[in-house]
């Protein structure tokens, strides 16, 4: 559970930092009235942004728990590691590509370049579908490997981790499709307001994809056993 505790500690630090800026040492019983700058007309982050952030915390908690469970199980004597399918490298590359394309779309949206936005969104969508196809190939490769039994925990964990991550990618693709449709429909001579709304959608997609990439890189490093030394070190600290 060390991974989870670290995750919760990070969230706690973040929350503590945020709370410390909220005037928690104010004395509300002495202060009456409304100060002039209580709330600006346009809050810096919109509700959808906060909503996404909160969702990422939930999803982050989910994945950190999965990684915790995985590393706890891995520490037991009978664990047999799995040779990882090579195709995972390709899918990792594709996910990085989609994250990068979305970032270019964000930059393009800031500059108002319609074609570049569309290109970035389409490229990200295509790369994400490619990523999912790569994961499916990895599943098939493992299934055909001859070692496949449902009762083997290392196989079960591999399928569970990739499936839950893949589901999150699929959910993101729904939002990405909606944003892409919005971008295609939007004419070049649109109002700055409409462009701003599109830019915000693109930004949200990009944040979500960066998160998915980060989660995948963490999962990948655990699956590839690069973190074995780290896990052993943590266990050494605790026992």
């Amino acid at each position, binding site marked *: 559970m060390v991974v989870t505790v670290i995750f919760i500690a990070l969230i706690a630090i973040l929350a503590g930092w945020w709370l410390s800026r909220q*005037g928690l040492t104010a004395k509300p019983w002495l202060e009456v009235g409304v100060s002039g700058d209580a709330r600006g007309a346009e809050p810096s982050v919109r509700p959808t942004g906060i909503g996404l952030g909160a969702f990422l915390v939930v999803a982050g908690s989910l994945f950190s728990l999965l990684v915790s469970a995985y590393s706890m199980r891995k520490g*037991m004597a009978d664990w047999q590691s799995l040779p990882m399918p090579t195709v995972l490298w390709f899918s990792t590359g594709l996910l990085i590509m989609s994250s990068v394309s979305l970032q270019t779309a964000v930059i393009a949206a800031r500059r108002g370049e319609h074609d570049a936005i569309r290109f970035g969104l389409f490229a990200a969508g295509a790369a994400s579908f490619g990523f999912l196809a790569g994961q499916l190939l990895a599943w098939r490769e493992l299934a055909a490997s001859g070692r496949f039994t449902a009762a083997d925990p290392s196989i079960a964990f591999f399928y569970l981790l990739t499936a839950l991550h893949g589901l999150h990618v699929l959910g993101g693709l729904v939002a990405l499709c909606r944003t892409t449709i919005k971008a295609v429909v939007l004419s070049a001579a649109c109002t700055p307001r409409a462009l701003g709304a599109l830019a915000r959608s693109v930004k949200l997609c990009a944040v979500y994809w960066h998160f998915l990439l980060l989660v995948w890189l963490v999962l990948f490093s655990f699956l590839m056993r690069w973190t074995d030394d780290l896990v052993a070190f943590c266990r050494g600290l605790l026992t």
Partner: protein
Amino acid sequence: MTDDTSNVIQSLSVAEVADVELYHPKSWITKYVFSQDAKIIAIQYSITALSIGLVALVMSWLMRLQLGFPGLLSFIDADSYYQFMTMHGMIMVIYLLTALFLGGFGNYLIPLMLGARDMVFPYVNMLSYWVYLLAVLVLVASFFVPGGPTGAGWTLYPPQAILATTPGKQWGIIVMLVSLMLFIVGFTMGGLNYVVTVLQGRTRGMTLLRMPLTVWGIFTATVLALLAFPALFVGSVMMLLDRVIGTSFFMPAIVSMGEQLPYGGGSPILFQHLFWFFGHPEVYIVALPAFGIISDLISTHARKNIFGYRMMVWALVAIGALSFLVWAHHMYVSGMHPAFGYFFATTTLIIAIPTAIKVYNWVLTLWRGDIHLTVPMLYALAFIVTFVNGGLTGLFLGNVVVDVPLSDTMFVVAHFHMVMGIAPIFAIFGGIYHWYPKVTGRLLSDTLGKLHFWVTFLGAYAIFFPLHYVGLMGVPRRYYEMGEMAFVPPSTATLNAFITVVALIVGAAQLVFVFNLVRSLRRGRPAGGNPWGATTLEWQTPQTPPGHGNWGKTLPVAYRWAYDYSVPGAAQDFLPQNQPPVPRTA
């Protein structure tokens, strides 16, 4: 306290308060059934939760009848006893308490108390309720599947949860896990809404430290729930896979009924970690909203500002943070490294500090207050007493050496019923008696309310005080019948029969409450907008019950904190949060 602070007092024009785009219902169906209005959703949540709670109440009767008078009801056998026990626990903790505090009180009070027109994402909010209802229906369906509901206990510990000898192995456990996963999905949708609304939906002047403690409690509990429920989700998914496709996440190599099962290599302890990483914060998911509600009830009905408001807020946040570091105190008997036991016992005891701060502050709020013994106030006082009682036995059980002999006895049952069963239910009752006039425009009957209170309060103690002794005598929990056991004196059987009789009476008193709820809808005394003389914004709405959009044309502005009671020199003994300060003339 006076109004002559250095703040610049501005007269605010209407346009300064940014309005939100509001959804407008077009038909009866979208107004009352598939409604996106947080107030309607809150009522839907509350009615659903209370209804399923009544089912769980009936199951507790059946269990008590078996314990007090073994063999009296022929249809209760060992299997059905375990099924009642499991469903009673699961329903009460998750489908009643969690849903009612966050979905019910949260939805109703967050927008109104913060001066918002609605939740930030009304559509998602509506979905949240319907997914919750689906989860409840799936849960109810487990009574009708072949083999009946699962009898694995509310903790669903593997391996026994999915072994053939456990009742409900066939379908019950599958249905249970699916229902839990649905609940978590539904809750997450609602929870994101509550958090974002508190962060972004506050009206002008409503700083975080001007929020009523009810909102602070619900907000902190929601954050806990958003972080903790994924653990139950992960556990449920993995156990479902173990059960359905034969993976071995939690299932070790095992022989069941003389047969070697195909499982091998899973870790049951892993499930316990995941379950209690959710399970312990769950105690506070239920307790923190209760803390908040009680703070507001005490302050309002004692006509005094809450003592140590800031400390109350900090204590809520501290309890929330600490609740993630104590989960393994539920696992002492599962065996662990002594250093871990030491660590978890210490963190468990540390939680007592912020909790004690809260109790002291409530008592100090009451000190020399103008205490009105209304029904909500009676429940608030009962909450404090009961929570302290349950909390003190928690200090015993938090210590490894005391916990090991007491674990799995009725003492534990008495402890957690006091602290997270009875106490939060008192807060819920207090809250319902307090806010019912705002929801319906009519007061609940005071006579029936007092009858309900005294029977419930005295009855709860008559049930759970003796249960501590039964536990100390060594009567184990989860036993369908005791039979002849040398170490248990026969007097415990008498005590058990007594407890059962009282439990039936207390259960019947809840029907008085339901009757009161229904009767007062039409025949209750009209309440007016602010029957308790409360300061918080929900009592200052232009209409009662609040209309669509809550606030008429203009949003309220919060000029002061939520606890300006009995301010010297003020015309009334309360100053509403939206009452502007008197400009200085000098």
